[in-house]
């Protein structure tokens, strides 16, 4: 798609890198047929400034006659003439013309001249030694370019004889366009030397766009002739073949004897480059000077290919970039090329390569377009990755094992970029969908959280709030949630909420202060083992840093008083604005952990029973619950006071009033007993009386039983059993008549100001209740009507059968008393 038409230049660069890597990974043996004599820095230092006299070259060639082929890469393009030579030649010409030549002295002179001529003409010396060695292949440069017309002139015979004669042109047949590298001119070596050479080849390097040498142009086209390269010529001579034995199939390959060298359409060979083995150069380089000076014996080069060329770092010592090295002396490159030819080690682009590349490209494109968008992210990355690995492995296996170069980087890049593009697009789309969906679920969770919070389900609410996206409106809600936790004294939870909030905006309202306070308080609760400092049992309503505490869904307003069980608070049900009295029982303080569960369940059972009672003279129970070891009962908030203050001898109520109150209490007890509910703790403190409205309410039904089994604490008088019935003290099964006994005690105290039974110890008191007959009320207060005294006496019978059997009978007698009293 987009990539198909992308700039091929940088893809080609990637291909080249992959090619170089493939070359480096290939391991072949270079063989040891090739030796290099390098004109290195040491040689130049010892022999003299470059260029050297051709005498030097002549000398070394003389030493190397044993070598099989000498490839000489130094160009000999201009004659080297000593200025003195012209004079010598002039002298000789003069001498030849004169008669002096025929004299004996003249002959001696002539010999000297001849000698001088010889030694002053290095070209001739070189030509001579080349001719003598008969194994020298010379190099010549061509000037590359497409010829426009005809060549400058006829070539000398020693050049034209180098042209290849076996050219096969199948290009029309195979429908291939040959694009053999063309040359428009050449710099020929000077005739005396060149004519003596065994062969001459071109020495032209083809540089890639990045300046690297990867290919060797085996053959150059010069007008209608084809000239082989030095490397090809050397290899041919090494195989004892001749230029005429080289057969070229245009656009395809070069054959030398049995060697088939596959080329690209330009007759270029993708040369192999042999890796150094154990840090050893595959082609050892000997210093020119060492050979000259005899330090290295010429026998070393017996039957080998010897390459002579520049490897100095100074002038003329350029290095080349090759797949295996960034600085390779050209002479080394030549060695690699020749070895490639001889070993048939080279890379080719098979015929099917481009088709194969196209198919791979197409597969990847199809994969990206059709399959990838339907795969889940993890499978997609796995498939893409394995495809990428497969492509890379294919590329390198084909290169290293078969020498096949396929340009697979294009599909690879397509795969990588395409995958990135498509997955990121996919990711963006799903991300957008996710944001939208998040907002939706955020909204529904938000609503749910608010609802749960209003139901007092703070933990569940917090869970839901955490699923919402944090924003300003949510912060407000969370803040309220934190305050609710504080009200419930769950400071660690409150701290959690505030900490969660501070991740969004630590400067929200007084958040920082809240976090500190909550942490301190939550630690206090943990440390609060002592009853005095414990927050379990009582609320510190004066603490201004904390919002009003909550108990269940009730907001605690203030403390109303302390009862036997625990503190009584004024609370408000915030939902309906109703004021309630909340009686609390600090369970963990009153009971051992082992019996806590049993006590709890009994507490709620009793609260439930009491809650069923619906009578104008019984206080209404709204709700019961427990929180932080604090069991509580929410009940009707009563005005007025209990009857305790009226038990003091100097504050006694009028008898009439007492009887009227007692009628209502008896009715209430009768109703409760009919519901099978026994009060168990009838006493003045449990009867609420409001003088203005004459309203009477019996409170604390059944609750006494809960505290029955409470552990007795020294120094704590948990309700003395002054009002208990004998059967209650002996632990028998109770019924309503027990309550009536207690009511008798109550009336006794209200009319007389003293208790019927007293004792200086618990044992005494219990004995008195169960055995002693109390003093007649009239003995204490003679104003008490006889009827009432009888009623009291009957209520305080030890034998249950002798008492009133139910409240209604008591009501009748009390009303009778009232009537008598008012008549009197």
């Amino acid at each position, binding site marked *: 798609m987009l990539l198909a038409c992308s700039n091929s230049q940088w893809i080609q660069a990637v291909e080249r890198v992959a090619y170089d890597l493939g070359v480096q990974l290939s391991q072949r043996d270079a063989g040891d047929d090739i030796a290099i004599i390098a004109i290195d820095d040491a040689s130049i230092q010892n022999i003299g400034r470059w260029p050297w006299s051709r005498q030097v070259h002549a000398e070394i060639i003389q030493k190397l006659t044993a070598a099989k082929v000498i490839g000489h890469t130094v160009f000999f393009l201009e004659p080297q003439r000593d200025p003195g030579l012209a004079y010598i030649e002039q002298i000789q010409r003069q001498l030849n013309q004169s008669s002096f030549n025929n004299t004996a002295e003249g002959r001696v002179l002539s010999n000297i001249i001849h000698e001088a001529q010889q030694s002053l003409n290095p070209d001739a010396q070189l030509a001579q030694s080349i001719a003598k060695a008969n194994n020298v292949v010379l190099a010549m440069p061509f000037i590359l370019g497409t010829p426009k017309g005809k060549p400058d002139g006829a070539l000398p015979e020693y050049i034209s004889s180098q042209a290849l004669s076996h050219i096969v042109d199948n290009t029309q047949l195979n429908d291939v366009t040959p694009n053999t590298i063309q040359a428009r001119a050449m710099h020929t070596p000077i005739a005396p030397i060149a004519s003596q050479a065994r062969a001459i080849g071109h020495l032209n390097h083809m540089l890639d766009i990045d300046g690297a040498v990867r290919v060797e142009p085996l053959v150059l086209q010069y007008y209608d002739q084809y000239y082989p390269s030095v490397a090809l010529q050397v290899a041919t001579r090494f195989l004892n073949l001749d230029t005429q034995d080289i057969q070229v199939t245009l656009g395809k390959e070069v054959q030398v004897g049995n060697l088939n060298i596959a080329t690209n359409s330009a007759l270029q060979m993708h040369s192999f480059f042999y890796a150094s083995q154990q840090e050893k150069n595959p082609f050892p380089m000997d210093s020119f000077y060492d050979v000259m000076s005899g330090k290295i014996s010429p026998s070393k080069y017996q039957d080998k290919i010897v390459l002579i060329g520049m490897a100095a770092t100074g002038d003329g010592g350029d290095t080349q970039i090759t797949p295996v090295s960034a600085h390779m002396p050209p002479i080394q490159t030549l060695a690699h090329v020749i070895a490639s030819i001889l070993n048939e080690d080279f890379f080719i682009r098979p015929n099917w390569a481009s088709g194969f590349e196209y198919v791979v490209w197409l597969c990847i494109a199809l994969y990206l377009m*059709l*399959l990838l968008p*339907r*795969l*889940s*992210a993890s*499978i997609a990355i*796995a*498939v893409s990755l394995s495809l990428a690995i497969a492509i890379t492995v294919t590329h390198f296996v084909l290169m290293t094992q078969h020498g096949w170069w396929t340009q697979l980087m294009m599909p690879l890049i397509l795969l990588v970029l395409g995958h990135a593009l498509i997955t990121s697009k996919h990711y963006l789309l*799903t991300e957008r*969908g*996710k944001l939208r*969906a*998040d907002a*939706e*679920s955020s909204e*529904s*969770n938000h*609503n*749910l959280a608010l*609802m*749960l919070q209003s*139901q*007092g*389900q703070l933990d*569940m609410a917090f869970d*839901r709030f955490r*699923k919402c996206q944090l924003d300003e409106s949510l912060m407000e809600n969370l803040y309220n949630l934190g305050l609710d936790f504080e009200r419930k004294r769950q400071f660690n939870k409150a701290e959690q909420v505030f900490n969660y909030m501070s991740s969004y905006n630590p400067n929200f309202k007084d958040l920082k202060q809240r976090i500190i306070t909550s942490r301190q308080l939550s630690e206090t609760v943990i440390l609060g083992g002592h009853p005095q400092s414990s927050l379990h049992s009582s609320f510190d309503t004066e603490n201004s840093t904390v919002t009003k505490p909550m108990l*269940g*869904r009730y907001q605690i307003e203030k403390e109303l008083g302390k009862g036997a069980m625990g503190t009584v608070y004024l609370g408000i049900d915030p939902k309906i604005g109703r004021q309630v009295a909340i009686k609390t029982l600090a369970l963990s303080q009153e009971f051992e952990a082992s019996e806590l569960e049993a006590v709890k369940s009994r507490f709620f059972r009793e609260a439930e029973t009491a809650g069923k009672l619906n009578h104008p003279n019984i206080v209404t129970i709204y*709700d*019961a*619950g427990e929180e932080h070891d604090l069991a509580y009962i929410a009940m009707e908030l009563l005005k007025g006071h209990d009857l305790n203050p009226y038990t003091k001898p100097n504050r006694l109520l009028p008898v009439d009033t007492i009887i009227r109150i007692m009628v209502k209490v008896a009715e209430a007890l009768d109703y409760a007993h009919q519901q099978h509910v026994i009060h168990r703790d009838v006493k003045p403190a449990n009867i609420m009386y409001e003088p203005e409205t004459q309203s009477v309410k019996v409170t604390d039904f059944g609750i006494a039983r809960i505290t029955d089994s409470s552990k007795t604490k020294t120094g704590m008088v948990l309700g003395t059993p002054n009002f208990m019935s004998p059967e209650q003290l002996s632990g028998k099964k109770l019924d309503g008549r027990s309550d009536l006994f207690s009511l008798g005690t109550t009336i006794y105290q209200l009319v007389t100001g003293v208790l019927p039974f007293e004792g200086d110890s618990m044992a005494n008191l219990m004995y008195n209740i169960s055995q002693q007959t109390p003093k007649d009320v009239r003995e204490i207060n003679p104003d008490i009507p006889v009827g009432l005294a009888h009623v009291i006496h009957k209520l305080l019978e030890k034998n249950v059968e002798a008492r009133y059997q139910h409240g209604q009978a008591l009501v009748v007698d009390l009303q009778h008393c009232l009537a008598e009293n008012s008549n009197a």
Partner: protein
Amino acid sequence: MNHLEHALRIARHTDTGQLRTRNEDAIASDASIGLAVLADGMGGYNAGDVASQMAVLTITAELISGFNQARQTGKQVDSNTAANLMQSAVNSANSAIYQVANEQEQCAGMGTTLVLSLFVDNQVVIGHIGDSRAYLLRNDQLLQLTNDHSLLQEQIDSGLLTPEQAKQATYKNFVTKALGVDPEADLEINTHTVAIGDLYLLCSDGLTDMVDDYEIETTLIEHYDDLESLANALIRKANQRGGKDNISVILISVVEGFPINRPNWLQSLVKKVMDKG
């Protein structure tokens, strides 16, 4: 953006009725996941609305996040997956209500009936508990898709009562199953294939106790083209007949198909290969 939003038209309406002072029904719908949910709360100390609200809010929240997760992992939600998601959403609603009912005295004994639908892959998954109903109007024929979980229905099913006698029964509102009263939710789930032109009705017993099926059918046919006025018409009729209970209706009409993209053979192959690997 979402093909479901083009495929479905949804209208919903709830009304307190003539006699009640509070509306204990709760309804919600979300076209993007093809969800409609209706709950009729009951019991507790004025807490029936708590149960129904909790049910609707929890189920909506859970289902949206469930569909989100599926979408993020690239999974297609088919009707089976939808039924599973529905079951787990209803389970969490059930345990939430159950917990609150047990912890809060004033909520003790609260519960709610429930009917909900998920439209997915040219099908509709309908779940219900209690006596809130789902109906389908197709080819001008009204079809009740849910079977009430009520004492009355059980008696009809067991042959103790004829449908005629049942109309006279006074204990119409005793449900045998409800959400939030047991630790486990006993949700009945049925899947139906959807046809274009279908009109689905979810309603509370405030409608069905007041308006009989025949009249519901004629009303649906009459106002078929305008869901909003249809919802209002149904509620108006229930109120005219006395409106003894809260009345809620959700109407969903199908205007286009909404198939999910099935994986092609190549994807199935890749998946198989991956699974084996």
